[in-house]
């Protein structure tokens, strides 16, 4: 087999992105996985209060979606949003600082796990309300169109959100105004305990796109390349001024909905089956196969990320606490004369 044949048959991501970008994508997947594991451990040890929603198992969906995006493209995220933040370039130490409620965190300790935003990287923020970010994403796309910025907005939401009114109203408006927004539904099979099958009238959420006269595709959300290809096509369409698209990214969360979950609505076998389709080794194998990285480099990446997460946790814990005297700060914008 000659090199050109290999290239033509290679997965989209291999053909579309530089080796450096691909290595970086793999690195981000490890970062998300180990970030979540680190957060879980900190929670278990009582270092983090509140609750959190982990996206272990969904890393390909976050990373594959963000791979085609430029820095100034925007995203809106969800309660299960740590992967989206890291995918869009957030700093893990600053994220941990937020979990620890520190002044040095992304939200100065006011938001916690469910509200991390990083406007400098185009991340308009996670959202504690299911479907809360969907109309906001359409608004950001309206700004992009009116102001002629050329930006595309990617709107992450889960399968649960597809039954909210905000989802339907938003897709309709994005379509009638032909706005540059890509709706990425991460279908992990369950809205908390209620399966998509029990809660959603259609078999595939992607088919709901037809109601709003936009393309809708369902992709393997555990395959970075498949996700990136669909998002790439959708963002290109959006940039051409041809309007929105809906992508359903089929994936699975390994952990429970949140820390209160007893996992009584799904079987161990089902979880094990999805764990066997772990998106991280799967992407690593593709990169090794195409000579982008060696197995040794993957092992080194893995180990480096462990170190990076440990350091991020250690540095985040030493950050300054918010001053209780500043409780009311940022309720309103302070206007300087």
């Amino acid at each position: 087999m000659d090199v050109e044949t290999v290239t033509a048959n290679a997965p989209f991501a291999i053909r579309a992105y530089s080796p450096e970008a691909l290595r970086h994508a793999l690195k981000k997947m490890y970062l998300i996985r180990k970030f979540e594991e680190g957060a879980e451990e900190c929670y278990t040890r009582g270092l983090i209060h509140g609750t959190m929603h982990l996206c272990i198992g969904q890393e390909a969906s976050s990373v594959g979606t963000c791979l085609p995006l430029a820095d100034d493209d925007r995203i809106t995220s969800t309660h299960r949003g740590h992967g989206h933040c890291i995918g869009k370039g957030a700093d893990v130490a600053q994220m941990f600082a937020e979990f620890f409620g520190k002044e040095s965190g992304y939200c100065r300790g006011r938001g916690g796990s469910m509200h991390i935003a990083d406007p400098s990287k185009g991340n308009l923020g996670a959202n504690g309300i299911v479907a809360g970010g969907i109309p906001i994403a359409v608004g950001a796309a309206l700004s992009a169109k009116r102001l002629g910025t050329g930006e595309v907005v990617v709107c992450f939401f889960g399968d649960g959100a597809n039954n909210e009114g905000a989802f339907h109203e938003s897709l309709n408006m994005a379509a009638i105004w032909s706005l540059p927004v890509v709706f990425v539904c991460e279908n992990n099979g369950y809205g908390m305990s209620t399966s998509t099958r029990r809660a959603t009238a259609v078999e595939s959420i992607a088919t709901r796109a037809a109601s709003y006269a936009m393309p809708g595709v369902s992709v393997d959300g555990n395959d970075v390349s498949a996700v990136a290809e669909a998002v790439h096509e959708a963002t290109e369409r959006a940039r051409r001024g041809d309007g929105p698209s809906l992508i359903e990214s089929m994936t699975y969360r390994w952990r429970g909905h949140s820390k209160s979950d007893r996992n009584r609505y799904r079987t161990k076998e089902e979880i094990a089956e999805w764990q066997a389709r772990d998106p991280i080794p799967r992407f690593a194998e593709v990169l090794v196969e195409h000579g982008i990285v060696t197995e040794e480099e993957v092992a080194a990446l893995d180990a480096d990320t462990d170190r990076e997460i440990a350091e991020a946790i250690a540095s985040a814990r030493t950050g300054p606490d918010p001053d209780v005297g500043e409780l009311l700060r940022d309720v309103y914008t302070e206007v300087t004369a």
Partner: protein
Amino acid sequence: MSATRELSYAEAIREAMDMALGEDERVVLMGEDIGVYGGAFQVSGDLVDKYGEERVIDTPISELGGAGVAVGAAMTGLRPIFEFQFADFAALAMEQIVNQAAKVRYMLGGSVSVPVVMRFPAGSGTGAAAQHSQSIEAWLGHVPGLKVVQPSTPEDAKGLLLAALDDPDPVMIFEHKVLYKMKGPVPEGRYTTPIGRAAIRRAGADVTVVATSLMVHKALSAAETLAAEDIDVEVIDLRTIRPMDRETVLESVRKTGRLVCVYEGVKTLGVGAEVSAMVAESDAFDFLDAPIVRLGGAECPIPYNPELEKAAVPQIPDIVEATRDIVRGRV
């Protein structure tokens, strides 16, 4: 200030929106039937002809989504003015107003502002019954992160809208539907009416009447009647209910020693409850010569029958009677 002319309240709002659209490319109007129809109350009028459908945007009948689009647009560089066709319909959009617009700045640690302006045609008196007549300003007045104003005159309707557009935070403007056709002097050119500042509409020595929106006019009529009985009423137009102008109210009560609150929203847990508590918790309490009296909306939905509808909100004779009683020591 520059020359004034007579404009209706609706015309004054339109003039403010016209100026804003003309001055600032980032300003867009959004709402149901605000384009070629001109708005349910003809507030946007012909602005679509001047600025086009790209800036005077007819939304589908999607209050939640539409309000959310305005919030997202405000977070990313536009200055949307979102019109609810009726204030009542904002109930469909409370998620975006209360959970998003009001909280985004705080919960993101100050990294994003939401400079959205929302307009709410509110109040009873039009025979539109329970779902098109409510005064829901106190709902939103309860939410930190929002600013809530209730202009009572054409001059303030223009000035508060321009102030709202200058403000970096979400400002909710409650406009009384009965006021839309009321005329009054409006200065030409650009000016702003400060948010958070009440206005003394009539100075008086015997009793303070704190009123909002349409009730300001009813209170002024009542004050004229009472003047003939030698009762000197001070009428304060609250104008903003969040943040409330504490000093103007307290100063007046220290002077008169009596307080009547008049507002159209349901009496219980309403604006008057807050004004009363503000006085009761302050040194002005020591100046009170009589219990505080609240006149608010009845504890029922707004009914259709005209006589029932009138009975559901304070009317001029109610204000006259309550104010007379408090001054004559009959409370």
